[in-house]
């Protein structure tokens, strides 16, 4: 078992004396990443603000590297833990280097002058967030994503053992999100930094976290490894999703399906049907899909978007078992979409489906794919 760096027992967090979240418990070995997820206003920020000493603990214990949070002076805490907050930081006329160098605050003397060693640490922090070329630029003149990285460099320059980040990816575009999270992963693995953060992007949370904690209705709704949390219906219940789906296996989010009698039948497979399912859903046209193997790439999406899905078990030798039902369904539709999936031996039934549509006089639309 690795050394425990951060442990929280039966914590109640809140503002003033009003509790917002109760009974939060976790134990983090060095170098692990814990991500808090859950609906807005559930109390993720309140937890982060409390375990970082910004709000006082209402009850329970917070232990940082074996020492109680309540017993640490602000200066001592600053050497153990640093933060990346959602606060807008708008200092006039400060270079990115100067902002990052603020991280050395707990280590510098009376007037905050930087030693050569301090400068070296700040430069290394900037390099690790890929912001070394920004050092001499005005902090207000760089982009949101760059600014967030410089603030992360500030937090790293504080040389903490624990890093706490409140929604670090808000306002970032997808590339910047990936960059930021991979920097965090690097810090956790290479430098044994323990990280606690909140994220909105559950798909990213699944990929970056060692532990995930779902917060809902003022308490811990679920807690465990991403493999445990992102299985079954946990995420749906955590966010109270009635309409639409979060597909746990592929991590994709789908809108609610269009109800009604199918007007279109999509003959897909191997992922070729995906754009059609989404396009039809976007246009609110009810459709059926088939025949798919249940291990097909697009099976999950088809299940959540189509009115009916005709399928056969994974790795089935033929599709005969589903053919009868599928043909009946297809003949009731106004048109058939051939997604262009290659027809081989095991899915030969789909070719017969298309043929029976043609002979029944139902228009069959087909997209030409280059790989065909």
């Amino acid at each position: 078992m690795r050394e425990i760096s951060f442990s929280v027992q039966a914590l109640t967090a809140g503002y003033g004396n009003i509790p917002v979240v109760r009974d939060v418990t976790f134990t983090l070995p060095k170098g692990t990443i814990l991500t808090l997820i859950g609906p807005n206003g559930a109390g993720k920020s309140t937890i982060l603000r409390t375990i970082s000493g910004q709000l006082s603990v209402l009850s329970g214990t917070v232990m940082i590297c074996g020492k109680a949070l309540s017993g640490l002076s602000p200066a001592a805490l600053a050497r153990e833990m640093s933060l990346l907050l959602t606060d807008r930081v708008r200092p006039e006329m400060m270079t990115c280097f100067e902002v990052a160098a603020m991280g050395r605050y707990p280590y510098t003397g009376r007037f905050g002058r930087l030693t050569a060693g301090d400068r070296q640490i700040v430069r290394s922090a900037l390099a690790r967030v890929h912001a070394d070329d920004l050092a001499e630029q005005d902090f207000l003149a760089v982009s949101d994503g760059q600014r967030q990285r410089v603030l992360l460099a500030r937090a790293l320059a504080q040389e903490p053992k624990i890093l706490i980040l409140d929604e670090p990816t808000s306002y970032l575009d997808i590339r910047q999100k990936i960059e930021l999270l991979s920097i965090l992963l690097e810090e956790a693995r290479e430098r044994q930094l323990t990280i606690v953060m909140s994220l909105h992007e559950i798909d990213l949370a699944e990929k970056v976290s060692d532990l995930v904690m779902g917060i809902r209705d003022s308490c811990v709704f679920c807690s465990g490894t991403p493999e445990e949390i992102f299985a079954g219906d946990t995420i749906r219940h955590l966010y109270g999703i009635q309409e639409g789906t979060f597909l746990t296996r592929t991590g994709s989010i789908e809108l609610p399906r269009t109800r009604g009698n199918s007007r279109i039948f999509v003959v897909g497979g191997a992922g070729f049907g995906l754009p059609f399912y989404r396009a039809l859903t976007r246009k609110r046209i009810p459709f059926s899909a088939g025949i798919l193997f249940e291990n097909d790439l697009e099976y999950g999406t088809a299940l959540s978007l189509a009115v009916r899905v005709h399928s056969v078990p994974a790795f089935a030798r033929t599709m005969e078992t589903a053919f009868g039902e599928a043909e009946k369904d297809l003949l009731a539709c106004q048109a058939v979409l051939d997604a262009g999936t290659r027809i081989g031996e095991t899915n030969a039934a789909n070719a017969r489906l298309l043929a029976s549509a043609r002979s029944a006089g139902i228009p069959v639309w087909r997209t030409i794919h280059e790989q065909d």
Partner: protein
Amino acid sequence: MKKIRIPLMFLLLTLALLFLLTLSLGIGSVPIAPNEIRQILTGSGDARLTRILLDIRFPRVLGAALLGGALGLSGFLLQAFFRNPIAGPYVLGISSGARLLVCIAMIFLLRFFAAAPFICLMAAAFAGSLLVTGLVLLFARRVPSMSTLLVVGIMTGSICTSLTDFLITFANEADVVNLHSWSMGSFSALTFANLVPAALIILPAAFFALLLSKPVGAYLLGENYARSMGVNVRSFRLLLITLSSLLSATVTAIAGPISFVGVAVPHIARLLFGTTRPLVIIPASFLMGSGFCLLCDLIARTVLAPSELMLSSVTAVFGAPVVIALMLRKSRRRENA
């Protein structure tokens, strides 16, 4: 280039200050040449000139430098406190608040004393400053934007000013003469008698502000970041507001309200030094405030000599455009939220 810029600017600033001091000492209804000043200082000058220089010019010129420095520094501390470049003791109505209480104190005290004791006026000015700062803070917390801060400050200032004018109108004839010149803001009433206690407050306060430069720097990133780096935010804020109020109150107690020095000087200092590091800008604001007030006072008493311009009219001509420029730049950046 960047390394040499700061010491170079300090050197230039000091030279400019020395030049302005000599100029201010020399220029007046009776001109005194630099070499005569040297003779007087070594004790071998003309008796009449000696009296003019030591009794009239010196207190006024040294006072302008000292009080100007205090205003510049006070403005810087307020800007750090509100994290807003538009803050300053005059713009936020703090000077007017101090003026109101000093006016009340004067009217009250002059019934018992021939001249109001400095310590009482100082206390009244300090109380007035804190009162208005508290009031502005109350609003600024609720709506944290630059324009709100400005509007609240101007409104509070106007209320204090009209109350003061009201009091002056109803004061005794004899008091009015006293009150009037002071309440306009002027360095003309400076003597060594009130300059020495002022220096005893301003110089230690300035030194103390310099000691605060490290947390002031951290506070630029916001309250929460400052706390996370180990700043005791509550006591730091209290200290900051006490120091800035003490500085501007001292100025108001002996020279009356002087406009726009506090808001303009730190901004010009930041531009000239190309940084916002408090360790640099705190002394720079003090020195530039000194220079700014020396220059403005010189202009006020020479342009229309023998009559004097109101000091605040001169400082406003130089200072107000800086405020306008700040507002324009802010709205261009669309971050006035």
